[in-house]
């Protein structure tokens, strides 16, 4: 019978001018409108009306379609937990009877209009005194009058206009974080101030080759320099000493030890020279080292303020749940949930712990946990795992396992989550150790030589060697190379957690991909209709039916119809959605059915399972055709895979989804790559672990998107979270990659490799400088002038070299 179907060619795109929502810019039909403005949903329209009533329409003039798509209505009880005093106390920064201060993270902030609207909240509600946004941190600070508006109302207002705050109790540490940042800047400021003044006071000496005519003046200058160097030594340089000391106490010579030694030797020799009146000291060099090192670290430690790389499941789960106690509703924190507690889960809420359904019908979306796209139907007494999202009506459930013992959260009890990775494995460390060792040998030889010929010069030559040959230029080259590379990665929307990830990235030889959301688009799909040709009326009928449904396949078909035909919605009556089967309704007194094969054709043998990507259509009981929906692969992904295969990377695919796409994946990856389907989060973690134990040389990069990949991301050497929208939440990872840039993965890896070459070259350069400096030092003839010239020249030239080299290499790699 399939042969009789006429295969319809894909209708040309752009056949009609599409209507877009005035608020959020999404394509929509023209059913909802006001004042000649069209909206995709009532939510968007309500927001527009609220803004219009308050004279805030400038929101739409500042940027093009600035609005945020309103994702369905949230239930009135959604933020009820904000009435809970304990939660309130944790969120409010300041509270008294007349004023409350609160800070929220709003991941949706994206344009100037957002800033404008959010800073004008006080015109919508009189209870808000003022609000202030920080665009880069995506934060808002709100001061409000608790007598006029409650915290819950503030959050509900924000959520209503599309900026639902992301509320989590374990990420409240931003205040503390800021202070730490300031400390480093103060240290740099003090070091810079002292350096410039010491340099100024040293100029007379530079020009008179170390001898100033008037002894009084020289004395004053020297003591002034000494006074200026004290804050640098005791305040700015303190972190080098504490870090070096910590290392020594653990019997491990860390990277700060040689720097601390150099600073200490330079300072004490200078103090001795000045107090004894034998010389001018090397205080300019010392403050210079401290200043440049601090700037280098600051540059390298650039962080992305609006990202969080350390989220665990707690950040995804709701803060509060509705508890049923003796028939009464109560809000409670999720950590307080015990086995046997009864809870209410409303539409679009997440199930916080493994629980059994007591009442109602669950229609659970597990995409978060398993990556499987299709929602599952769960009836009474059936077990539902934590992390699922209820798409249907409100259900009552009884907790079976407490939150931290649940199926998905157990993953976090695995010890990979407490282990720190990429710690102290940098290839610079052995270099700096060899360097220090060589330096000691040279200084020792010099001491031995002078003890034979002129013992008065031993002290002079040894200290001078230690002063001039500080490994700081070595370290500077690394910090500036990585710092600059981080910026280049960031420009390409690849946000690394810190610089040690670059090194780990350069060693990668095995790449594991998650399929859904990583290689494929998670929301878009290819739709192909096969069957009888449909007249316009029938297309409108299908459209009106799928419009009513929240099933992902319905949405995809709706999107497809809207983009290819000019659709007119019709009245659908008796709309029914049968979970796991399909949807039906009667339009223009004709029965329209969409769904699985068995749903359409009762006589069809139910034993032959229908593939999940097929939606059959029947109108008035006649089979019309089938919509075939296949994953849409991201642009450039096949090319990237071909390239990686040619470069002999070991490629693997892990998917939580079914194997419908197997043949397509094999066409990209070839027969050699292993492709695994139906993988649970725990299996993904174990898979990475096994890869690493089987081959100890395997350095694994995992590319994943959901919470279901969290364990694998953590277990791998470099875990990259792919995010459709960088404001979305990503699981704990080492890097966040914008989904549109996935096809640049091979370039990122190669760029990370080129970073090592740049560092090696700059090491050679710095060693050349050291040879020059040492050749003076071992002769005991290192004048403060030579040290003062050599130090900044070597530092500045190395910094310039690595910055230019990394930028050039980024350009060549097409980044």
């Amino acid at each position: 019978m399939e042969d009789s179907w006429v295969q319809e060619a894909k209708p040309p795109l752009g056949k009609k001018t599409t209507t877009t929502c005035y608020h959020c810019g999404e394509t929509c039909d023209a059913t909802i409108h006001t004042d000649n403005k069209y909206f995709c949903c009532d939510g968007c329209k309500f927001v527009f009306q609220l803004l219009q009533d308050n004279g805030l329409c400038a929101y739409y003039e500042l940027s093009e379609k600035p609005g945020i798509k309103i994702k369905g209505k949230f239930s009135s009880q959604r933020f009820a937990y904000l009435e809970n005093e304990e939660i309130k106390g944790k969120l409010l920064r300041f509270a008294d009877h007349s004023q409350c201060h609160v800070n929220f993270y709003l991941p949706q902030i994206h344009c100037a209009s957002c800033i404008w609207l959010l800073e004008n909240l006080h015109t919508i509600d009189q209870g808000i005194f003022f609000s202030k946004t920080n665009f880069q941190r995506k934060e808002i600070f709100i001061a409000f009058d608790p007598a006029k508006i409650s915290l819950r109302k503030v959050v509900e207002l924000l959520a209503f206009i599309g900026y639902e705050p992301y509320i989590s109790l374990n990420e409240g540490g931003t205040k503390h974080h800021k202070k730490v940042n300031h400390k480093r800047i103060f240290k740099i400021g003090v070091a810079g101030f002292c350096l410039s003044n010491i340099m100024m006071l040293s100029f007379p000496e530079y020009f008179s080759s170390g001898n100033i005519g008037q002894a009084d003046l020289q004395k004053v200058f020297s003591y002034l320099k000494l006074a200026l160097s004290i804050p640098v030594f005791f305040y700015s340089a303190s972190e080098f000493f504490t870090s070096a000391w910590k290392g020594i106490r653990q019997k491990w010579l860390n990277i700060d030890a040689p720097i601390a030694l150099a600073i200490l030797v330079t300072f004490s020799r200078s103090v001795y020279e000045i107090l004894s009146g034998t010389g001018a000291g090397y205080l300019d060099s010392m403050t210079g080292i401290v200043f440049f090192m601090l700037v280098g670290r600051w540059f390298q430690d650039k962080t992305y303020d609006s990202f969080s790389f350390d989220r665990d499941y707690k950040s995804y789960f709701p803060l509060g749940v509705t508890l049923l106690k003796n028939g009464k509703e109560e809000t409670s924190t999720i950590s307080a949930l015990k086995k046997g507690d009864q809870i209410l889960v409303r539409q679009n809420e997440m199930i916080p712990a493994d629980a059994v359904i007591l009442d109602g019908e669950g229609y659970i979306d597990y995409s978060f946990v398993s990556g499987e796209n299709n929602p599952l139907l769960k009836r009474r007494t059936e077990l539902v795992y934590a992390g699922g999202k209820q798409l249907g009506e409100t259900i009552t459930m009884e907790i079976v396992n407490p939150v931290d013992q649940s199926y998905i959260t157990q993953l976090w009890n695995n010890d990979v989550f407490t282990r720190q990775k990429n710690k102290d494995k940098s290839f610079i460390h052995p270099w700096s150790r060899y360097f220090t060792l060589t330096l000691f040998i040279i200084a020792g030889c010099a001491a031995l030589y002078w003890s034979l010929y002129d013992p008065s010069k031993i002290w002079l030559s040894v200290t001078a060697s230690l002063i001039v040959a500080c490994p700081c230029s070595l370290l500077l080259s690394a910090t500036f190379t990585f710092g600059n590379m981080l910026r280049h990665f960031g420009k390409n929307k690849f946000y690394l957690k810190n610089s040690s990830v670059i090194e780990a990235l350069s060693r990668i030889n095995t790449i594991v991909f998650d399929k859904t959301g990583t290689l494929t688009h998670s929301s878009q799909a290819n739709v192909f209709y096969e069957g009888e040709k449909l007249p316009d009326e029938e297309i409108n009928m299908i459209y009106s039916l799928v419009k009513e449904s929240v099933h992902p396949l319905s949405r995809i078909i709706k999107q497809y119809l809207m983009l290819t035909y000019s659709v007119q919605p019709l009245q659908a009556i008796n709309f029914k959605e049968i979970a796991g089967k399909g949807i039906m309704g009667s339009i223009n007194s004709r029965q329209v059915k969409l769904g699985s094969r068995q749903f359409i054709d009762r006589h069809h043998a139910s034993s032959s399972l229908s593939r999940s990507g097929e939606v059959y259509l029947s109108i008035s009981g006649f089979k019309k055709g089938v919509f075939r929906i296949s994953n849409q692969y991201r642009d450039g992904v096949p090319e990237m895979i071909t390239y990686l295969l040619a470069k002999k990377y070991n490629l693997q695919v892990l998917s939580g989804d079914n194997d419908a796409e197997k043949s397509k994946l094999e066409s990209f990856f070839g027969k050699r790559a292993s492709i695994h389907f139906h993988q649970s989060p725990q299996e993904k973690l174990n898979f990475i672990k096994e890869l690493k134990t089987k081959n100890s040389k395997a350095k694994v990069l995992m590319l994943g998107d959901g919470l279901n990949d969290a364990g694998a991301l953590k277990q791998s050497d470099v875990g990259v979270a792919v995010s459709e929208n960088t404001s979305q939440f990503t699981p704990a990872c080492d890097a966040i990659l914008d989904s549109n840039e996935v096809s640049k993965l091979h370039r990122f890896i190669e760029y990370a490799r080129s970073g090592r070459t740049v560092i090696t070259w700059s090491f050679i350069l710095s060693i050349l400088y050291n040879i020059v400096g040492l050749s003076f030092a071992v002769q005991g003839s290192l004048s403060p002038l030579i040290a003062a010239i050599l130090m900044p020249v070597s530092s500045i030239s190395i910094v310039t070299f690595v910055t230019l080299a990394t930028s050039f290499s980024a350009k060549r790699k097409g980044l």
Partner: protein
Amino acid sequence: MSVLILLIAFSILIAGGFLVAFIWSVRKGQYDDDYTPSVRMLFDDKPVAEKTSPSISKPK
């Protein structure tokens, strides 16, 4: 030469003043957000004024 010493004392004092100003401004959070103020200053009138303007306001 005492004039030179006086001069140096002054110069360090002034530079120190700038250092204090720098620390003060960092502490006050003036460098915490280097983007939003640049957008904020481009916004036109106060929204309160807009609300009363007849062209935009709508009867509730």
